[in-house]
Protein backbone atom coordinates (compact mmCIF):
# COMPACT_ATOMS: atom_id res chain seq x y z
CA UNK A 1 0.00 0.00 0.00
CA UNK A 2 1.29 3.49 -0.82
CA UNK A 3 1.76 6.06 1.90
CA UNK A 4 -1.12 8.49 2.51
CA UNK A 5 -2.25 11.13 4.99
CA UNK A 6 -5.28 10.30 7.08
CA UNK A 7 -7.81 12.63 8.65
CA UNK A 8 -11.23 12.25 10.20
CA UNK A 9 -14.09 14.46 8.98
CA UNK A 10 -16.34 15.91 11.68
CA UNK A 11 -19.05 16.89 9.21
CA UNK A 12 -19.77 16.34 5.50
CA UNK A 13 -18.40 19.83 4.80
CA UNK A 14 -14.90 18.58 5.72
CA UNK A 15 -15.09 16.03 2.91
CA UNK A 16 -16.79 18.11 0.22
CA UNK A 17 -14.71 20.05 -2.31
CA UNK A 18 -11.36 18.62 -1.19
CA UNK A 19 -8.99 16.50 -3.21
CA UNK A 20 -8.85 13.94 -0.38
CA UNK A 21 -10.35 10.56 -1.11
CA UNK A 22 -13.38 9.66 0.96
CA UNK A 23 -13.14 6.43 2.94
CA UNK A 24 -16.33 4.97 4.40
CA UNK A 25 -16.44 1.23 5.20
CA UNK A 26 -13.13 0.82 3.37
CA UNK A 27 -14.14 -2.61 2.08
CA UNK A 28 -13.53 -1.71 -1.55
CA UNK A 29 -11.04 1.14 -1.30
CA UNK A 30 -8.58 -0.64 1.04
CA UNK A 31 -8.80 -3.83 -1.02
CA UNK A 32 -7.70 -1.82 -4.06
CA UNK A 33 -5.13 0.25 -2.15
CA UNK A 34 -3.40 -2.91 -0.92
CA UNK A 35 -2.92 -3.88 -4.56
CA UNK A 36 -1.94 -0.31 -5.51
CA UNK A 37 -4.76 -0.17 -8.01
CA UNK A 38 -5.84 2.86 -5.99
CA UNK A 39 -3.13 5.18 -4.68
CA UNK A 40 -4.75 8.19 -3.00
CA UNK A 41 -2.41 10.71 -1.32
CA UNK A 42 -4.99 11.69 1.28
CA UNK A 43 -7.86 9.85 2.89
CA UNK A 44 -10.73 11.53 4.65
CA UNK A 45 -12.69 9.25 6.97
CA UNK A 46 -16.42 10.05 6.85
CA UNK A 47 -17.53 7.45 9.39
CA UNK A 48 -18.25 10.11 12.03
CA UNK A 49 -20.15 12.72 10.02
CA UNK A 50 -23.65 11.41 10.78
CA UNK A 51 -25.72 10.65 7.64
CA UNK A 52 -26.32 7.27 9.24
CA UNK A 53 -30.11 7.29 9.56
CA UNK A 54 -33.06 6.26 7.44
CA UNK A 55 -35.69 8.98 7.64
CA UNK A 56 -39.17 9.44 6.24
CA UNK A 57 -39.40 11.84 3.31
CA UNK A 58 -43.03 12.37 2.28
CA UNK A 59 -44.24 8.98 1.06
CA UNK A 60 -40.69 7.81 0.63
CA UNK A 61 -37.51 7.53 2.69
CA UNK A 62 -34.07 9.09 2.68
CA UNK A 63 -31.20 6.67 3.35
CA UNK A 64 -28.05 8.39 4.63
CA UNK A 65 -24.80 7.68 2.77
CA UNK A 66 -23.29 6.15 5.93
CA UNK A 67 -26.17 3.78 6.62
CA UNK A 68 -24.56 0.34 6.62
CA UNK A 69 -25.86 -2.19 4.14
CA UNK A 70 -26.87 -4.53 6.98
CA UNK A 71 -28.95 -1.80 8.65
CA UNK A 72 -30.62 -0.78 5.42
CA UNK A 73 -31.60 -4.39 4.64
CA UNK A 74 -32.93 -4.94 8.17
CA UNK A 75 -34.80 -1.62 8.42
CA UNK A 76 -38.49 -2.26 9.16
CA UNK A 77 -39.77 0.31 6.66
CA UNK A 78 -37.45 -0.81 3.87
CA UNK A 79 -38.41 -4.44 4.48
CA UNK A 80 -42.10 -3.62 4.35
CA UNK A 81 -42.30 -1.09 1.52
CA UNK A 82 -39.20 -1.70 -0.63
CA UNK A 83 -38.40 -5.39 -0.03
CA UNK A 84 -36.58 -5.41 -3.37
CA UNK A 85 -33.84 -3.31 -1.80
CA UNK A 86 -33.46 -5.60 1.23
CA UNK A 87 -33.34 -8.67 -1.01
CA UNK A 88 -30.71 -7.14 -3.30
CA UNK A 89 -28.47 -6.07 -0.42
CA UNK A 90 -28.78 -9.44 1.32
CA UNK A 91 -27.79 -11.17 -1.93
CA UNK A 92 -24.45 -9.31 -1.90
CA UNK A 93 -21.11 -9.85 -0.17
CA UNK A 94 -21.08 -11.45 3.34
CA UNK A 95 -22.64 -10.49 6.68
CA UNK A 96 -19.28 -9.12 7.90
CA UNK A 97 -18.90 -6.94 4.79
CA UNK A 98 -22.50 -5.73 4.90
CA UNK A 99 -21.98 -4.65 8.52
CA UNK A 100 -19.27 -2.30 7.35
CA UNK A 101 -20.20 -1.40 3.75
CA UNK A 102 -21.99 1.93 3.43
CA UNK A 103 -24.74 3.04 1.07
CA UNK A 104 -22.46 5.61 -0.59
CA UNK A 105 -19.47 3.28 -0.84
CA UNK A 106 -21.59 0.51 -2.28
CA UNK A 107 -22.75 2.79 -5.13
CA UNK A 108 -19.13 3.80 -5.75
CA UNK A 109 -17.62 0.27 -5.72
CA UNK A 110 -15.40 -0.42 -8.69
CA UNK A 111 -15.49 -3.22 -11.24
CA UNK A 112 -14.25 -6.73 -10.50
CA UNK A 113 -12.62 -7.10 -13.95
CA UNK A 114 -9.52 -9.26 -13.35
CA UNK A 115 -7.32 -7.06 -15.52
CA UNK A 116 -8.35 -3.94 -13.60
CA UNK A 117 -6.94 -5.68 -10.49
CA UNK A 118 -3.72 -6.80 -12.20
CA UNK A 119 -1.11 -4.05 -12.41
CA UNK A 120 0.82 -6.02 -15.03
CA UNK A 121 -2.12 -6.13 -17.45
CA UNK A 122 -3.30 -3.37 -19.77
CA UNK A 123 -6.49 -1.68 -18.58
CA UNK A 124 -8.01 1.54 -19.88
CA UNK A 125 -10.01 1.99 -16.70
CA UNK A 126 -6.97 1.82 -14.42
CA UNK A 127 -4.53 3.42 -16.83
CA UNK A 128 -6.23 5.30 -19.67
CA UNK A 129 -4.72 4.52 -23.07
CA UNK A 130 -3.03 1.27 -22.00
CA UNK A 131 -5.57 -0.96 -23.79
CA UNK A 132 -8.10 -3.50 -22.56
CA UNK A 133 -6.93 -6.91 -21.43
CA UNK A 134 -10.44 -8.31 -21.34
CA UNK A 135 -11.27 -7.77 -25.00
CA UNK A 136 -9.93 -10.95 -26.60
CA UNK A 137 -8.84 -12.12 -23.14
CA UNK A 138 -10.73 -13.91 -20.40
CA UNK A 139 -14.07 -12.20 -20.20
CA UNK A 140 -16.52 -14.57 -18.56
CA UNK A 141 -17.77 -11.93 -16.11
CA UNK A 142 -17.89 -9.06 -18.59
CA UNK A 143 -20.61 -6.96 -20.20
CA UNK A 144 -23.02 -8.06 -22.92
CA UNK A 145 -24.75 -4.67 -23.15
CA UNK A 146 -23.46 -1.12 -23.60
CA UNK A 147 -19.77 -2.06 -23.80
CA UNK A 148 -17.29 -0.04 -25.86
CA UNK A 149 -14.08 -0.61 -27.81
CA UNK A 150 -12.21 0.69 -24.76
CA UNK A 151 -13.83 -1.26 -21.92
CA UNK A 152 -16.23 -4.17 -21.43
CA UNK A 153 -16.32 -4.10 -17.62
CA UNK A 154 -19.48 -4.47 -15.55
CA UNK A 155 -20.62 -2.57 -12.51
CA UNK A 156 -20.59 -5.46 -10.01
CA UNK A 157 -22.98 -4.33 -7.27
CA UNK A 158 -26.45 -5.52 -6.31
CA UNK A 159 -27.90 -2.69 -4.21
CA UNK A 160 -27.77 -0.18 -7.08
CA UNK A 161 -29.69 -2.57 -9.36
CA UNK A 162 -32.63 -2.48 -6.95
CA UNK A 163 -32.28 1.28 -6.57
CA UNK A 164 -32.45 1.71 -10.36
CA UNK A 165 -35.61 -0.38 -10.55
CA UNK A 166 -37.13 1.64 -7.69
CA UNK A 167 -36.37 5.01 -9.36
CA UNK A 168 -34.24 6.09 -6.44
CA UNK A 169 -32.46 9.44 -6.49
CA UNK A 170 -28.85 9.94 -5.35
CA UNK A 171 -28.46 13.22 -3.45
CA UNK A 172 -24.96 14.67 -3.73
CA UNK A 173 -23.20 17.83 -2.67
CA UNK A 174 -20.16 19.48 -4.23
CA UNK A 175 -18.37 22.79 -3.96
CA UNK A 176 -21.15 24.37 -6.07
CA UNK A 177 -24.01 23.06 -3.98
CA UNK A 178 -26.38 20.14 -3.99
CA UNK A 179 -27.87 18.21 -6.88
CA UNK A 180 -29.99 15.12 -7.46
CA UNK A 181 -28.87 12.30 -9.75
CA UNK A 182 -31.46 9.65 -10.69
CA UNK A 183 -30.07 6.23 -9.75
CA UNK A 184 -30.56 5.17 -13.38
CA UNK A 185 -28.15 7.91 -14.45
CA UNK A 186 -25.66 7.62 -11.61
CA UNK A 187 -23.52 4.99 -13.32
CA UNK A 188 -22.51 5.57 -16.93
CA UNK A 189 -21.42 3.66 -20.01
CA UNK A 190 -17.66 3.39 -20.56
CA UNK A 191 -17.47 4.96 -24.04
CA UNK A 192 -13.92 6.19 -24.56
CA UNK A 193 -13.53 7.35 -20.93
CA UNK A 194 -13.85 4.11 -18.94
CA UNK A 195 -11.78 5.60 -16.13
CA UNK A 196 -15.02 7.28 -15.07
CA UNK A 197 -17.38 4.77 -13.48
CA UNK A 198 -20.16 7.22 -12.74
CA UNK A 199 -21.35 10.80 -12.97
CA UNK A 200 -20.20 12.00 -9.56
CA UNK A 201 -17.88 14.97 -10.11
CA UNK A 202 -14.55 15.48 -8.33
CA UNK A 203 -15.12 17.11 -4.93
CA UNK A 204 -18.69 15.84 -4.70
CA UNK A 205 -19.90 13.62 -1.90
CA UNK A 206 -22.95 11.36 -1.80
CA UNK A 207 -25.14 12.52 1.11
CA UNK A 208 -28.08 10.16 0.75
CA UNK A 209 -30.32 8.10 -1.48
CA UNK A 210 -34.01 8.94 -1.68
CA UNK A 211 -36.63 6.29 -2.42
CA UNK A 212 -39.91 7.59 -3.83
CA UNK A 213 -43.34 6.31 -2.74
CA UNK A 214 -43.69 2.51 -2.50
CA UNK A 215 -44.90 0.72 -5.64
CA UNK A 216 -46.60 -2.23 -3.97
CA UNK A 217 -46.72 -5.50 -5.90
CA UNK A 218 -44.29 -8.39 -5.64
CA UNK A 219 -40.59 -7.67 -5.36
CA UNK A 220 -38.06 -10.23 -6.56
CA UNK A 221 -34.27 -10.02 -6.78
CA UNK A 222 -32.78 -13.09 -8.40
CA UNK A 223 -29.02 -13.35 -8.61
CA UNK A 224 -27.34 -16.07 -10.66
CA UNK A 225 -23.72 -16.78 -9.72
CA UNK A 226 -21.10 -19.48 -9.37
CA UNK A 227 -22.03 -20.31 -5.78
CA UNK A 228 -25.13 -19.67 -3.74
CA UNK A 229 -23.71 -16.99 -1.51
CA UNK A 230 -20.74 -14.60 -1.25
CA UNK A 231 -20.15 -14.30 -4.99
CA UNK A 232 -20.75 -11.54 -7.52
CA UNK A 233 -23.61 -11.78 -10.00
CA UNK A 234 -23.18 -13.29 -13.43
CA UNK A 235 -26.67 -12.00 -14.14
CA UNK A 236 -29.18 -10.54 -11.72
CA UNK A 237 -32.78 -9.48 -12.26
CA UNK A 238 -34.63 -6.98 -10.06
CA UNK A 239 -38.37 -6.98 -10.66
CA UNK A 240 -41.43 -5.27 -9.24
CA UNK A 241 -44.77 -6.42 -10.62
CA UNK A 242 -48.26 -5.70 -9.29
CA UNK A 243 -51.30 -7.59 -10.55
CA UNK A 244 -54.54 -5.80 -11.27
CA UNK A 245 -57.51 -7.86 -12.55
CA UNK A 246 -55.20 -10.51 -14.01
CA UNK A 247 -52.99 -7.93 -15.71
CA UNK A 248 -49.52 -6.71 -14.83
CA UNK A 249 -49.09 -3.17 -13.61
CA UNK A 250 -46.38 -0.96 -12.11
CA UNK A 251 -43.76 -3.13 -13.82
CA UNK A 252 -40.15 -2.23 -13.04
CA UNK A 253 -37.17 -4.27 -14.23
CA UNK A 254 -33.44 -3.75 -13.81
CA UNK A 255 -30.50 -6.04 -14.56
CA UNK A 256 -27.12 -6.48 -12.90
CA UNK A 257 -23.90 -8.13 -14.05
CA UNK A 258 -24.50 -7.35 -17.70
CA UNK A 259 -23.29 -3.78 -18.25
CA UNK A 260 -21.17 -0.92 -16.91
CA UNK A 261 -24.32 0.24 -15.10
CA UNK A 262 -27.53 -1.31 -13.77
CA UNK A 263 -29.47 -1.92 -17.00
CA UNK A 264 -33.01 -0.63 -17.27
CA UNK A 265 -35.13 -0.87 -20.44
CA UNK A 266 -38.40 1.11 -20.27
CA UNK A 267 -39.57 -0.50 -23.58
CA UNK A 268 -39.52 -3.94 -21.96
CA UNK A 269 -41.54 -2.68 -19.00
CA UNK A 270 -44.04 -1.03 -21.38
CA UNK A 271 -44.50 -4.33 -23.27
CA UNK A 272 -45.64 -6.01 -20.05
CA UNK A 273 -47.64 -3.15 -18.53
CA UNK A 274 -51.41 -3.80 -18.66
CA UNK A 275 -50.99 -7.27 -20.19
CA UNK A 276 -51.89 -10.70 -18.87
CA UNK A 277 -48.79 -12.74 -18.04
CA UNK A 278 -47.79 -15.26 -20.73
CA UNK A 279 -44.53 -17.04 -21.58
CA UNK A 280 -44.30 -15.64 -25.13
CA UNK A 281 -44.81 -12.14 -23.76
CA UNK A 282 -41.97 -12.71 -21.28
CA UNK A 283 -39.80 -13.78 -24.24
CA UNK A 284 -40.64 -10.60 -26.11
CA UNK A 285 -39.73 -8.53 -23.05
CA UNK A 286 -36.40 -10.37 -22.87
CA UNK A 287 -35.79 -9.65 -26.56
CA UNK A 288 -36.37 -5.95 -25.86
CA UNK A 289 -33.91 -6.05 -22.94
CA UNK A 290 -31.32 -7.87 -25.06
CA UNK A 291 -31.61 -5.51 -28.03
CA UNK A 292 -28.02 -4.92 -29.15
CA UNK A 293 -26.57 -7.53 -26.78
CA UNK A 294 -23.21 -8.91 -27.83
CA UNK A 295 -21.11 -11.61 -26.21
CA UNK A 296 -17.32 -11.37 -25.98
CA UNK A 297 -16.66 -15.11 -26.18
CA UNK A 298 -16.50 -16.47 -22.65
CA UNK A 299 -19.55 -14.50 -21.56
CA UNK A 300 -21.82 -15.48 -24.49
CA UNK A 301 -23.79 -17.62 -22.01
CA UNK A 302 -25.07 -14.48 -20.29
CA UNK A 303 -27.44 -13.78 -23.19
CA UNK A 304 -29.57 -16.92 -22.81
CA UNK A 305 -29.04 -16.78 -19.04
CA UNK A 306 -30.59 -13.33 -18.84
CA UNK A 307 -33.51 -14.40 -21.03
CA UNK A 308 -34.26 -17.46 -18.91
CA UNK A 309 -33.76 -15.70 -15.60
CA UNK A 310 -36.15 -12.93 -16.61
CA UNK A 311 -38.79 -15.47 -17.70
CA UNK A 312 -38.46 -17.35 -14.43
CA UNK A 313 -38.70 -14.16 -12.39
CA UNK A 314 -41.77 -12.91 -14.26
CA UNK A 315 -43.45 -16.29 -13.88
CA UNK A 316 -42.75 -16.23 -10.14
CA UNK A 317 -43.90 -12.62 -9.80
CA UNK A 318 -47.24 -13.27 -11.49
CA UNK A 319 -47.97 -16.81 -10.38
CA UNK A 320 -51.25 -17.13 -8.49
CA UNK A 321 -51.66 -13.34 -8.23
CA UNK A 322 -54.80 -11.53 -9.33
Amino acid at each position, binding site marked *: *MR*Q*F*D*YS*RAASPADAIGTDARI*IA*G*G*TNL*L*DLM*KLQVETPDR*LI*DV*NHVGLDRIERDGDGVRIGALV*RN*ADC*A*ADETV*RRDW*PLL*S*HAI*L*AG*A*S*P*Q*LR*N*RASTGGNLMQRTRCYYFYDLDAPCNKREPGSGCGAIGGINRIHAILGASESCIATYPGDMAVAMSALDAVVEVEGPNGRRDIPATEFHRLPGDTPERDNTLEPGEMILSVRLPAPLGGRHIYRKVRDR*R*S*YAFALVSVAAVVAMDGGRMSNVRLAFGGVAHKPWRVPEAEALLEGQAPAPDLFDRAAEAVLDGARGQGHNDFKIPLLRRTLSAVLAEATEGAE
Partner: protein
Amino acid sequence: MDVTLTVNGAQQTLQLDDPRVSLLDALRQRLDLTGTKKGCDHGQCGACTVIVNGRRINSCLTLAVMHDGDEITTIEGIGTPDNLAPLQRAFIKHDGFQCGYCTPGQIVSATAMLEELRQGWPSQLTGDLGAADLTDEEIRERMSGNICRCSCYPNIVDAIRDAAGETGSQAGGQPGARLAAEGAA
Protein backbone atom coordinates in the same frame (compact mmCIF):
# COMPACT_ATOMS: atom_id res chain seq x y z
CA MET B 1 -0.94 9.27 16.03
CA ASP B 2 -2.58 7.83 19.13
CA VAL B 3 -5.40 5.35 18.74
CA THR B 4 -7.36 4.27 21.80
CA LEU B 5 -9.12 0.94 21.55
CA THR B 6 -11.05 -1.02 24.14
CA VAL B 7 -10.10 -4.59 23.34
CA ASN B 8 -11.85 -7.38 25.24
CA GLY B 9 -12.81 -4.89 27.90
CA ALA B 10 -9.35 -3.36 28.43
CA GLN B 11 -8.64 0.13 27.17
CA GLN B 12 -5.32 0.50 25.38
CA THR B 13 -3.63 3.32 23.55
CA LEU B 14 -1.53 2.48 20.53
CA GLN B 15 0.98 4.84 19.03
CA LEU B 16 0.87 4.33 15.29
CA ASP B 17 3.60 5.88 13.18
CA ASP B 18 1.81 4.87 9.98
CA PRO B 19 -1.91 5.04 9.16
CA ARG B 20 -1.57 2.03 6.84
CA VAL B 21 -1.81 -0.48 9.71
CA SER B 22 -4.98 -2.55 9.36
CA LEU B 23 -7.00 -3.31 12.48
CA LEU B 24 -5.99 -6.94 11.96
CA ASP B 25 -2.26 -6.17 11.99
CA ALA B 26 -2.69 -3.86 14.98
CA LEU B 27 -4.35 -6.65 16.96
CA ARG B 28 -1.87 -9.33 15.97
CA GLN B 29 1.40 -7.45 15.80
CA ARG B 30 1.01 -4.57 18.24
CA LEU B 31 -1.30 -6.10 20.84
CA ASP B 32 -0.09 -9.71 20.54
CA LEU B 33 -3.65 -10.96 20.10
CA THR B 34 -2.75 -13.60 17.53
CA GLY B 35 -6.01 -15.54 17.82
CA THR B 36 -7.45 -13.44 15.01
CA LYS B 37 -6.06 -14.90 11.78
CA LYS B 38 -5.02 -13.47 8.45
CA GLY B 39 -6.22 -15.67 5.61
CA CYS B 40 -6.62 -13.61 2.46
CA ASP B 41 -6.19 -10.02 3.75
CA HIS B 42 -8.87 -8.99 1.18
CA GLY B 43 -12.25 -9.59 2.78
CA GLN B 44 -12.74 -12.95 1.10
CA CYS B 45 -12.33 -15.54 3.87
CA GLY B 46 -13.53 -14.29 7.26
CA ALA B 47 -10.53 -15.61 9.24
CA CYS B 48 -9.96 -12.07 10.55
CA THR B 49 -13.51 -11.58 11.88
CA VAL B 50 -13.75 -9.47 15.04
CA ILE B 51 -16.67 -7.70 16.70
CA VAL B 52 -16.49 -3.90 16.65
CA ASN B 53 -19.11 -1.97 18.64
CA GLY B 54 -21.29 -5.07 18.60
CA ARG B 55 -20.93 -5.86 14.88
CA ARG B 56 -18.85 -8.58 13.22
CA ILE B 57 -16.56 -7.17 10.55
CA ASN B 58 -13.45 -8.19 8.60
CA SER B 59 -10.53 -6.61 10.46
CA CYS B 60 -8.30 -6.87 7.37
CA LEU B 61 -10.34 -4.33 5.39
CA THR B 62 -10.33 -1.54 7.91
CA LEU B 63 -7.58 0.70 9.27
CA ALA B 64 -6.70 0.75 12.97
CA VAL B 65 -6.82 4.58 12.94
CA MET B 66 -10.46 4.42 11.88
CA HIS B 67 -11.31 2.73 15.20
CA ASP B 68 -10.14 5.30 17.72
CA GLY B 69 -12.68 5.07 20.56
CA ASP B 70 -14.18 1.76 19.45
CA GLU B 71 -14.88 -1.42 21.45
CA ILE B 72 -13.46 -4.60 19.99
CA THR B 73 -14.00 -8.24 20.89
CA THR B 74 -11.58 -10.83 19.55
CA ILE B 75 -11.59 -14.59 20.06
CA GLU B 76 -9.49 -14.03 23.21
CA GLY B 77 -12.45 -12.10 24.64
CA ILE B 78 -15.05 -14.74 23.77
CA GLY B 79 -13.70 -17.35 26.17
CA THR B 80 -10.49 -18.72 27.67
CA PRO B 81 -9.16 -22.28 27.99
CA ASP B 82 -10.47 -22.48 31.58
CA ASN B 83 -13.70 -20.71 30.78
CA LEU B 84 -14.83 -21.69 27.30
CA ALA B 85 -17.83 -20.02 25.73
CA PRO B 86 -20.69 -22.35 24.68
CA LEU B 87 -19.70 -22.01 21.01
CA GLN B 88 -16.11 -22.95 21.78
CA ARG B 89 -17.25 -26.02 23.72
CA ALA B 90 -19.59 -26.96 20.90
CA PHE B 91 -16.83 -26.69 18.25
CA ILE B 92 -14.73 -29.12 20.31
CA LYS B 93 -17.63 -31.48 20.95
CA HIS B 94 -18.63 -31.58 17.26
CA ASP B 95 -15.09 -31.55 15.87
CA GLY B 96 -15.83 -28.33 13.98
CA PHE B 97 -12.31 -27.99 12.61
CA GLN B 98 -9.36 -29.80 11.14
CA CYS B 99 -6.36 -27.43 10.90
CA GLY B 100 -8.13 -24.85 13.06
CA TYR B 101 -6.99 -21.82 11.10
CA CYS B 102 -10.47 -20.54 10.29
CA THR B 103 -11.87 -21.48 13.72
CA PRO B 104 -11.39 -18.23 15.67
CA GLY B 105 -13.08 -16.35 12.83
CA GLN B 106 -15.88 -18.93 12.70
CA ILE B 107 -16.54 -18.66 16.44
CA VAL B 108 -16.40 -14.86 16.59
CA SER B 109 -18.62 -14.68 13.52
CA ALA B 110 -21.12 -17.19 14.92
CA THR B 111 -21.24 -15.29 18.22
CA ALA B 112 -22.37 -12.13 16.43
CA MET B 113 -24.54 -14.06 13.99
CA LEU B 114 -26.66 -15.48 16.82
CA GLU B 115 -27.13 -11.97 18.15
CA GLU B 116 -28.21 -10.72 14.68
CA LEU B 117 -30.72 -13.54 14.59
CA ARG B 118 -32.07 -12.57 18.01
CA GLN B 119 -32.55 -9.05 16.70
CA GLY B 120 -34.65 -10.45 13.87
CA TRP B 121 -32.33 -9.62 11.00
CA PRO B 122 -33.32 -11.34 7.75
CA SER B 123 -30.96 -13.16 5.38
CA GLN B 124 -31.32 -13.73 1.66
CA LEU B 125 -33.06 -17.01 2.50
CA THR B 126 -35.66 -15.35 4.69
CA GLY B 127 -38.21 -15.15 1.88
CA ASP B 128 -40.69 -12.78 3.52
CA LEU B 129 -37.88 -10.88 5.31
CA GLY B 130 -39.57 -11.69 8.64
CA ALA B 131 -37.86 -13.20 11.66
CA ALA B 132 -36.00 -16.37 10.74
CA ASP B 133 -35.63 -19.69 12.51
CA LEU B 134 -32.18 -21.11 12.97
CA THR B 135 -32.46 -23.81 10.31
CA ASP B 136 -29.33 -25.44 8.96
CA GLU B 137 -29.82 -23.52 5.72
CA GLU B 138 -30.01 -20.22 7.59
CA ILE B 139 -26.85 -21.11 9.55
CA ARG B 140 -25.01 -21.89 6.32
CA GLU B 141 -26.14 -18.67 4.66
CA ARG B 142 -25.41 -16.49 7.69
CA MET B 143 -21.97 -18.08 8.06
CA SER B 144 -21.13 -17.80 4.35
CA GLY B 145 -18.59 -15.05 5.13
CA ASN B 146 -16.37 -17.63 6.82
CA ILE B 147 -14.59 -20.00 4.50
CA CYS B 148 -13.14 -23.26 5.82
CA ARG B 149 -10.39 -24.60 3.60
CA CYS B 150 -10.61 -27.96 5.38
CA SER B 151 -14.32 -27.98 4.57
CA CYS B 152 -15.53 -28.81 8.07
CA TYR B 153 -18.86 -27.19 7.27
CA PRO B 154 -21.20 -30.01 8.41
CA ASN B 155 -19.57 -30.11 11.86
CA ILE B 156 -19.46 -26.31 12.09
CA VAL B 157 -23.20 -26.20 11.44
CA ASP B 158 -23.77 -28.91 14.08
CA ALA B 159 -21.70 -26.97 16.60
CA ILE B 160 -23.53 -23.70 16.01
CA ARG B 161 -26.96 -25.34 16.17
CA ASP B 162 -26.02 -27.02 19.42
CA ALA B 163 -24.57 -23.88 21.02
CA ALA B 164 -27.54 -21.80 19.89
CA GLY B 165 -29.86 -24.22 21.64
CA GLU B 166 -27.84 -23.79 24.81
CA THR B 167 -27.64 -19.99 24.78
CA GLY B 168 -30.96 -19.36 23.11
CA SER B 169 -32.89 -20.64 26.13
CA GLN B 170 -31.08 -18.36 28.57
CA ALA B 171 -31.89 -15.00 27.03
CA GLY B 172 -29.45 -12.35 28.17
CA GLY B 173 -26.77 -14.92 29.03
CA GLN B 174 -23.45 -15.37 27.28
CA PRO B 175 -22.72 -14.20 24.60
CA GLY B 176 -25.73 -12.10 23.73
CA ALA B 177 -25.54 -9.96 26.85
CA ARG B 178 -22.01 -8.84 26.22
CA LEU B 179 -22.81 -7.95 22.59
CA ALA B 180 -25.92 -6.06 23.53
CA ALA B 181 -23.91 -4.12 26.10
CA GLU B 182 -21.26 -3.28 23.53
CA GLY B 183 -23.84 -2.26 20.99
CA ALA B 184 -25.36 0.14 23.46
CA ALA B 185 -21.99 1.60 24.46
